[in-house]
Structures are given as C-alpha cells and as structure tokens.
C-alpha cells in the first residue's frame, strides 16, 4: 500500500512538473487542457480587451451606467477578484494602456469647470483652466514591479502642478512620486509628521487642524480638514478652484464620532461641487449629507495587493450603495482607472 501511495504521489508530482515545464502542444488550436495558467492568461487578455473597448464606447456618465458599461465593470470586478489574475501581463497591459490615455489627455485644455481623472486606487487628478492637481497619486503594486510603469506614472506626475496626500498609507502616499513633484519645483502638501525633512517643497502640516493654503499661481485654495482613519491623521483635502468648482477627497476617513460631528456641518462652510469619498467609507450617507455636494465620484474600488477579495470593493457594490442612498437624489459618476469626467457648475 505504501509503495502504491508513493508511486501515486510521484505520478502526481511528475504530472504537475510536466504542467509547469512543458509548452502546451495544442496552443495553436487554442486547447488548454492541463494548462490552466496559460488558459487564464489568454482569457484575461481577451476579457481586458473587450472591457477596454466597451468602456471607451460607454464613457462615464451620471448615475447608473448604461447596461453595456455596467457589464464591462462587473466583468472587470470578476477578473480582479480572481487572484490568479493578479500581477499578470494582461493586467499590467490593461492598466498601463488606460493610464497612457490619461497621460495623453492631460494635454487637452479645460475651458470651463473641472476635468476629473480617476487613477489607481484613491488617486485623482483634477484639472481646471489654470491648474492641474493630483491627490493620492501612486503607481500601485510592489516597489520592484509597480502596476503603473515609471514612464507612465512619472509622465502623469510631470503634468501636474501640485500633489496633496491624505495619509501615510502606501496605497495613498508614495515618497518617490512626491519627490518627483519637488524636483520640478512643485509643492506637496502632506499630513502632519509625514516625510518631515524630505524636501523643502514636501510640506507636512505643522498641526493636524483645519488649514487653508493659498496657491496664488494656480488660482486655487487648499482647505485641509483634520480627519482620521482610526488614530491616523487623515487629511480631507478640499480644493477650491476659484471660479471653476470645489472638490473634496476624503482619503481613508473612517470611524470617529468626533470627526463625524464636524463633518455633519461641512456644507455650512464650504460649497462642495464634487465629493470624492472612499467607496467603503463607513457612514457614507452621513458624510455625503455633511458635505452636501452636487455630485459624487467614489474612489478606492478594487484595491489589489494585500487585500483579500472580499475587501476588493467592486464597482457593482458602489452602484448598489448608491441605490441604497437614492433618497438623497444626488447624482453620482462611477469611474474606473484611466477615465475622466467633465464637471461644470
């Protein structure tokens, strides 16, 4: 019996080795029996291509996406919730193709209002006629193989005039990106205690309190509201583009009844046009009511990497959450990586 078991184990091991070491002899016939990894790579490439085509055809618009766009988004969710697809060539190709479009589109002038670009995770770029501001811009992925290649992410960073960071977590803050801004003479506003002394132009707040910073050359004012993710300082960045609109990005604002107490009243002090919360923010409806915006654009969907699939927030979940808040009668725009939306007051 022991001999049989040993032989069986050897046979299984030999089969497994053969699967990984031998090339699929039927690849030219698109038959992948015994070659699951190759099959999944091929399928991911096909799916990403179809999704990209559909997303370009049905661009972001207010409220529930058109059915083909919704299917593209849920297909993207399905791909991104199969960990076999993590960090594969089709994924890198997909995200970089989309980011290259952002890089190119950033050259297109904005004549009125704001153009809002969605990048990886909670990253946004907001472009007005006079300024281009990045918030929580990161390349994503491990340092040795970032999701967005250096040429693309630094190309995008190079087209921005300032960078605002919500909090120190690496899915929001990247020192190399910040340094690239400083190297070009651009200011970086970070939360208290982050990157202290890294560069004179990388400026953590002295105090974690409501702070107003003028950018006269960019015709904008940054209002930092002192939020928290638990005990972590979390800057809620309210960017007032004079005459064009005001956006608020909440970073990973989470919990804290003491914060919610003042968040309830933000709308009394600031005229928020576009509210950009983290999609899994707790008490989201309360926060939305507190900011009183005219439009909602969520961030942070499908964060890959450390999170297990149950915490890679899907696009379809954002749609469902917005349906739950239908009583607010507030429009929302659901965007994915590498898309943009023109907002006019």
């Amino acid at each position, binding site marked *: 019996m022991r001999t049989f078991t040993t032989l069986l184990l050897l046979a299984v091991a030999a089969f497994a080795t053969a699967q990984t070491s031998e090339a699929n002899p*039927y690849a*030219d*016939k*698109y*038959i*992948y*029996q*015994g*070659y*699951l990894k190759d*099959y*999944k790579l*091929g*399928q991911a490439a*096909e*799916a990403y291509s*179809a*999704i990209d*085509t*559909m997303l370009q*055809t049905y661009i972001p618009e207010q409220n529930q996406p058109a*059915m*083909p766009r*919704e*299917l*593209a988004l*849920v*297909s993207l*969710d*399905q*791909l991104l*919730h*199969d960990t076999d697809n993590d960090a594969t060539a089709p994924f890198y190709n997909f995200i970089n193709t989309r980011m290259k479009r952002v890089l190119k589109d950033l050259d297109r002038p904005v004549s009125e209002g704001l153009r809002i670009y969605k990048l990886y995770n909670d990253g946004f770029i907001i472009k007005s006629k006079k300024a281009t501001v990045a918030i929580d811009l990161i390349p994503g992925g491990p340092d040795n193989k970032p999701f967005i290649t250096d040429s693309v992410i630094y190309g995008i960073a190079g087209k921005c005039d300032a960078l605002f960071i919500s909090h120190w977590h690496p899915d929001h803050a990247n020192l190399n990106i910040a340094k690239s801004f400083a190297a070009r003479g651009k200011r970086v506003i970070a939360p208290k205690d982050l990157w202290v002394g890294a560069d004179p132009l990388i400026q953590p707040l002295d105090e974690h309190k409501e702070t107003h910073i003028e950018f006269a050359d960019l015709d904008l004012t940054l209002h930092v509201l002192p939020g928290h993710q638990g005990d972590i300082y979390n800057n809620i960045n309210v960017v007032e583009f004079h005459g064009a609109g005001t956006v608020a990005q909440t970073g990973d604002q989470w919990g804290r009844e003491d914060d919610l107490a003042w968040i309830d009243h933000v709308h009394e002090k600031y005229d928020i046009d576009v509210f950009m919360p983290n999609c*899994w923010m707790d008490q989201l409806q309360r926060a939305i009511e507190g900011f009183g915006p005219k439009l909602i654009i969520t961030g942070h969907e499908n964060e890959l990497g450390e999170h*297990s*699939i*149950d*915490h890679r927030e*899907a696009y*379809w*979940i954002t749609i*469902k*959450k917005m349906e*739950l808040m239908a009583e607010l009668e507030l429009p929302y725009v659901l965007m994915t990586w590498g898309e943009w939306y023109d907002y006019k007051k």
Partner: protein
Amino acid sequence: MKKLSLLHYIPVCLLAAATALPAAAQQRRVSSYEKDYIFWGSPDAYLNYQAKTGFPLIDQMLQAYPPTATPDKHRQMALVSLDQFLHDEGYTRREAFYTFVNSRMAHLLEDMNRPVLSGVRIYKLYNSGFILKTLKNTIAIDIVQGGGSSSKGIVSDSVIYEIAYKCDALIITNTDERHASRKAAKAFAEAGKKVILPKGLWTNLGEALQPAGADTVQTIELDAMTLHILPGHNGSNRNNICIMDLKGCGIVAHTGAQDNAADLTWIEHLHEQYKTDILLTKSQNLDLESIVSGFRPRVLITANENEMERSVDMREAYWTTQKRVNSLTAIDIPNIIMAWGEAYDYADTESENISSSASKVMIDGVLYIERKGAVYTPSGVKVK
C-alpha cells in the same frame, strides 16, 4: 407505543438547534449584505452576489445582441464575460448560475411558440444539445440536464419535460452521459414522442425507443425528415453521426461526440454525398478542420462550450472557440457562436421560396401558418 421520556428528546432538540442556528445566522447575514454590501470576511458570499449581478447583465446583453456570423463588440463582451463567470470553480454554490441557465431556457421555451415560416431555426441548449424547428416538425438532439454526478441538475426537470412536450422526437448520438440523458429520454417517451438512440442504451422506457446505428449508413424516415445515421466513433465507442434532411428546410448534421482519426477517411468525403447546410459539431475537436472540411457546410455552429462538469481548463470558452474556428483559414465558412438558450434562423434558397408561399393566418382568433393550401400550427402540425 412506547412513551418517550424527556431525556429521549434531548438529542433531537440538540440536533434541531444545531441545524437551525446556522440557518438562522445565515439568513441574518444574507439580509445584512443587502443593507450595506460589505462582505469583509465572507469571500464566498461576495462571489455569490457578484454572480447575482453579473449573470443578469450577460443575459440582457445576449438578448440585445443575438447570434450572428460577425458578432459585434457587445456580444463579444457578453460571451467573454460569461466565460469568466463560468470558469468559477465554486459555481455549484452560486444559485445565480442555475437561475441564469434556466432563465435562458425559459427564453427558449417561449421562443419555441414563434412559428418558423421558412428554413430551420436552431436552438442551442446545454452542452451538445440542440433543437431544430421547421414549419413541420421539431427535433431535439442530445438534450441533457447537465450536472454530472451532482444531485442538482443544471437544467431543471420542468424545462426538460416542457422541451419533450414541445418537440416531436429526440435523437441521441452516443451513450456518454454528456449526450444521453435517461431523464430526457423518459420525458420524451412519457410524452409519446419517438426517441432514436444508440443500440444497447436503456431498454425499459417503452415502445417509443428506437435503437439505431449500424456499421453502415442507416436511413430512417420520420415525419418531414429523413435521418441518415453514420457509423462514427468517440475513441473506440460508437457515435452516431446524424444527418437530418429536413425536406426543403435544410440539411443539418450533428456529429455528437465524434473523435476518431480513422473515421476521417470517410468523413472527408461526406460533402460529395450530403449537401449539408448546417454542421453542429463540438468546438474543441483536435480534428475540427478535417471534420468541417469533410462536411463543407454552409454554416458552422459549434457545441460543447463550457461543459461545467469538467475542470476549468477543459471548459471550452466561447473565446477559444472563436479563435479556433477563425484559425481554420483553409475553410471560408461562416460560423455562429451560440450560448445556451439562443436561436438562429437559417433559410437556404429553397426554403426562402417556401417562405414566400407561407403566410400567417388567424382562424377563430388562433394563429396558424398557411402554405400551399394546407394549414399548420405554429409548431408545424398540419391541421387542415
């Protein structure tokens, strides 16, 4: 009757509590997901809800963009998305999967009420199952429930029985359970419909069963159809290749589970004897080019995609079928990729002539088809 003491009830109560508590907990969890859509710590529940969201969208897209020889980007999106959802190893835990399949079967059953005025309408079912509907008859081939050894069939019992009710006959090509379903054969037999099946397969389902297949071509005459059964093989097992001459409505060939290199010597000449309009053949055949070349049909419709009982690497995706068929560069034959529950209308020149002579008529408020002085029900039964 012996009276039970309270002590006797304790194990029963404990068992009831043990089963009721998780059920109650599960119920609470399910309702709470729909209050906040937060699935942290419950990846399987997350995937269940994702399937519940994805499958209906795929269904909508497929309905909006039905099968054609040149599917556009919308249909491509739906098919590759379907491949993704069907390549989920945990699909048997997704109720949305079963709902999807059976809702598509419901579309099919409803569509079968629509008359066929000319040619033949092809319906695709699970695995290699098809229904051919003409003005005069409705033939089912290799209808199976799916699900393998699982106690839960993929296609519901009621759908199988309704198909049997709406069809005139069932043809089974081979004995493999992926093509031959005893439940389907029984449903047809109970409905008084003929079942033509390989020899040696079930003998106790009554007189409706007609064993068929021989070492040479066998020809069977049915109502408005001549069936030619060719002696094919799947490996060493007998496989009846069925060529159905629908008498002016088209000639349709179904190759069942055909997979045998030696048979290719005669398959390659079939086009000389049979003018096949539509070839229904499994998509992942290594000799697909030889089979298609042998039949030289006017239209190719593939079968067997996404056979769920198999491991993921063996569930043939629609996208691989499309790549494979498009790579048959030596053969310029239009191909139609169909998903479960879809219909495709084919009409050759002759049946187009029939079309011009057929018309819908209302008699006592009921729809009939009139052709050359005769009146038929929409399902093709002659009434006058």
